[in-house]
């Protein structure tokens, strides 16, 4: 390695060091709060959160009282086919959750009830856990999913009714 090459490979890390310092200068709040704003101090991967189940009747009661909000964690096509009236879709494009919009739409202190397809839809627990990491502390998931909701004779609607809601969220 020539002296000139050595010089480049010494200046390279120096550039990264200066860049890193500039990044910290631009966001000094990260030094005051190194754990960030929304993420719990505990490493979420080390201690997976297990959200509690909520029964259909209790979920409906909370929703009607305005203390809970339904988030449909199924694929967008399934949401279009049928969903709980007033539920928010977690994704518009498959596997790309609308974290920012959902965060804006969920009122502070509200319980989020994640809705899956049925009792064996395990994705719902994963999404509920991830929502908690995004600062939505009170997340639960609907026991039996949409299947149980329908079996209980509760109403469902079809179609994609999220566009106006999403526009409102990003405003």
């Amino acid at each position, binding site marked *: 390695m020539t002296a000139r*090459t050595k*010089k*480049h*490979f010494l*200046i*390279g*890390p*120096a*550039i*990264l060091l*200066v*860049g*890193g*310092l*500039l*990044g*910290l*200068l*631009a*966001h000094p*709040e*990260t*030094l005051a*709060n*190194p*754990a*960030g*704003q*929304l*993420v719990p*101090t*505990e*490493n*979420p*991967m*080390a201690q997976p959160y297990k959200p509690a189940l909520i029964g259909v009747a209790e979920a409906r009661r909370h929703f009607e009282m305005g203390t809970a909000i339904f988030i449909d964690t199924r694929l967008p096509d399934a949401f279009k086919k049928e969903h709980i009236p007033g539920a928010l879709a977690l994704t518009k494009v498959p*596997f*790309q959750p609308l*974290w*920012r919009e959902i965060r804006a739409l969920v009122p502070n202190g509200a319980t989020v009830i994640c809705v899956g397809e049925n009792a064996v839809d395990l994705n719902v627990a*994963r999404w509920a856990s991830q929502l908690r*990491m*995004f600062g939505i502390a009170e997340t639960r998931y609907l026991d039996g999913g949409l299947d149980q909701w329908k079996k209980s004779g509760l109403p469902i609607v079809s179609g994609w009714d999220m566009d106006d809601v999403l526009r409102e969220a990003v405003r």
Partner: protein
Amino acid sequence: MKSPLSVFEMSLGFAVRVGSGLLLLIAAKEKWDNFEWWTNQFALLAVTPRGYHAPFAAAAVGMELLTGALLVLGILTRSALAASAILWSIFAVVLASVLWRGIDVACGCFGPESPFPITWPRVVGEVAVAILCVAISFAKLDPLRSERFWRGAESTPHHA
């Protein structure tokens, strides 16, 4: 007369320098614009000490921004290429570690709307870009020469 080989060399040097720089700039801009989201995403990768991810997330954006800007502008080019190679290598190690530990999380490298999942081919791609950056940084061809080359002048001085 410009030989086809020198045209290829110049184009490769230029493409790697500007391409790598632009990628870093775009990635930095997306993270800058969605900084709260990026801090969370960075925490999910679980590569920093517990509860100390936010400063690392901020530093990463600064590194990408400065290195990308230097590469695109052609300032300290070889050193910026070396910095870029280090950055791409770090990205590859982080992504490989996430895959290895089986953490199910989106990459987030290019912002919340980024459609790229973390996959092994992605890791290989990042290693390839790092190797290219090192190669161009070491190579005799001057990555800056490309601009002068396209203007029709050689970078080596001509003597009468």
